[in-house]
């Protein structure tokens, strides 16, 4: 309005040049760093000290670096889960709940065979997590295909429901630790614990599984007919239907794959890090996974990189809190700011300012 009075108009570019996009996005990232610096100043801490302690806490030692990868592991899974769904333009906001469902179903299956060999228990928890997460996401898929319920709404509602379901099972429920005070299960059977990859670290098999999952998702999207359908669904579901593909089947399949990946995040946290099932071990990975997926450009390897970056943030923040007193909760604010600026920068680079006749 005012811009047009000045003789300019914002117009979409026919195609965005690579450099323009890079400048816009890195500008956005820089802006979010500045904003974070201001947040540090607001709580009376020098931004330099804060950023330094953040990096030191994340990568300062071998132990810190592996811990960063531990933190990144569930985010790789949830980031992949989000990326697969978003690629098909299915807004699965329910990864958060599917992490719970995967962990719960894995736990249910595993506790039935506790005491058996790891060669039996480990495959069972992996498959159990995938089935649990996949089925819970499938509920949203079914609601969409059968009852035309928008998946954004249904997945969010399902997120809230499963938290209460877990609480129901844990608090004085069938899964509660005998004589325990907290809302959690007893420690899991040693045969179901994910093996540690390097001595004297906490890095566990889950990280390796996450990398394998990334590779498989990459192959699936790029090389397989399923990937073609996912990409086609993302650009035009109706055209897919005209072509003779059953779009309902595609929706259900994508939701199942997405949920299965999310479930693995729950499994890896329970059996790789906490060794027991409790809500605190599972929260917020789903929502952070959305940011990870978007910053990773919905590309599996991009997701891995973004997840490691976020793992570093989370890990570094704990150290930062000890060193500088800045609450580690700052990280969640930073993540959101990063996402907002990134989206804005990305979008801004697809516009140009055009001189119009006054």
């Amino acid at each position: 309005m005012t811009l047009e009075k000045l003789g300019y108009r914002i117009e979409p570019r026919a195609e965005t040049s690579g450099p323009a996009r890079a400048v816009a996005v890195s500008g956005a990232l820089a802006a979010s760093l500045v904003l974070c610096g201001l947040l540090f100043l607001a709580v009376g801490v020098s931004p330099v000290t804060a950023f330094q302690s953040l990096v030191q806490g994340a990568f300062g030692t071998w132990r810190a670096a592996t811990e960063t990868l531990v933190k990144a592991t569930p985010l790789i899974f949830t980031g992949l889960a989000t990326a697969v769904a978003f690629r098909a333009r299915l807004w699965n906001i329910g990864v958060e709940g599917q992490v719970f469902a995967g962990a719960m179903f894995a736990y249910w299956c595993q506790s039935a065979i506790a005491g058996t060999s790891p060669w039996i228990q480990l495959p069972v928890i992996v498959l159990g997590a995938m089935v649990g997460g996949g089925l819970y996401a499938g509920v949203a898929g079914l609601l969409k295909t059968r009852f035309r319920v928008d998946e954004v709404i249904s997945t969010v509602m399902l997120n809230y429901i499963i938290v209460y379901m877990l609480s129901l099972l844990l608090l004085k429920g069938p899964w509660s630790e005998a004589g325990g005070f907290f809302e959690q299960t007893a420690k899991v059977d040693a045969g179901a614990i994910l093996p540690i990859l390097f001595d004297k670290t906490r890095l566990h098999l889950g990280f390796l599984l996450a990398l394998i999952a990334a590779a498989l998702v990459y192959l699936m999207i790029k090389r397989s007919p399923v990937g073609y359908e996912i990409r086609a669904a993302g650009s035009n579901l109706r055209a897919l239907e005209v072509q003779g593909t059953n779009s309902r089947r595609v929706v259900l399949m994508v939701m199942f794959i997405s949920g299965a990946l999310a479930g693995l995040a729950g499994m890896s946290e329970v059996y790789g890090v906490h060794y027991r099932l409790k809500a605190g071990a599972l929260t917020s990975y789903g929502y952070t996974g959305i940011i990870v997926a978007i910053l990773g450009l919905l590309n599996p390897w991009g997701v891995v990189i973004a997840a490691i970056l976020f793992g570093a943030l989370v890990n570094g923040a704990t150290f930062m809190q000890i060193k500088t007193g800045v609450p580690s909760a700052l990280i969640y604010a930073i993540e959101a700011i990063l996402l907002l600026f990134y989206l804005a920068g990305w979008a801004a680079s697809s516009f140009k300012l055009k001189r119009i006749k006054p």
Partner: protein
Amino acid sequence: MIAELLETSIIISVLAATVRIATPILLAALGEMIAERSGVYNMGLEGTMLMSAFTAYIGAYYTGSLWLGVVIAMITGGLMSLIFAFMVITLKVEQIVTGLALNLLGSGLSIFWLRAAFANAGQTPTIPFFDTVPLPLLSDIPFLGPILFDQKLLTYLAFLMVPAAWYFLFRTRYGLELRCVGENPKALDIKGLNVAARQYAAVVFGGLMAGLGGAFLTVGSAARFVPEMTNGRGWLAIVIVIAGMWRPVPVLLATIAFSFLDALQLQIQGIGVAIPYQLLLAMPYICAILALAIRRSHSGAPAMLGIPYWRK
């Protein structure tokens, strides 16, 4: 249990609680309804309400004035929705993703700020909260009086916003133009009217209302701030707009239905009936899904809802 629940005093207390619980959701839902009528789907309601609830608390704590807290919350809601509006109307970023970003921002920023402001975040200080204002004469009406007319000022305001929103949408020229923006923005544009300005106004209005709703959670009832205390109310408000077919009176009815579930849940817990409380707490979300599944068609949705308008 049934006999206990049917006692008049209990019925009155459940219904009065329904009206109270409905307040923040109704405020947010009416605002969202106006925003969606302009074609913009503000999915960031949860974060907007949460952040406003927080700033209302912080504002009231430091200024000592509850009303200043409310004003600060409204400014917060307005600012957050302004960010949203800029992202989706000017930059045309995907509305769902932007909304999520806003939710994460509200969640992250409020927890960070809370921890930064109070060393012991587990034991944050309580603040006073609004008293009920019984309306003279009306509150003496048997049965209805204590339910409807012994409430807080923000509750009266929320319910008065229903006829106000109806009048605005269906009886004023601005309301007609706003509905047109959501249905056929091009027609408005051709007439030389500014589509983006109307969308901005609607979205920011929605933010102010969400801010008011958020404020009610802290200075209106809880008297303190707890992380994630909105607990899905922002999302329920969005469901209510859909279930209420984008019309003020059905939106009111849907809000009452959800709030009644919540009030009943509190009462059943209070009596100590042996139903697991988690099941009762999950009821609003389960019912939300059922409500949307049963209704099937999205009748009443603005034609351009969620689709950015490109001026060619």
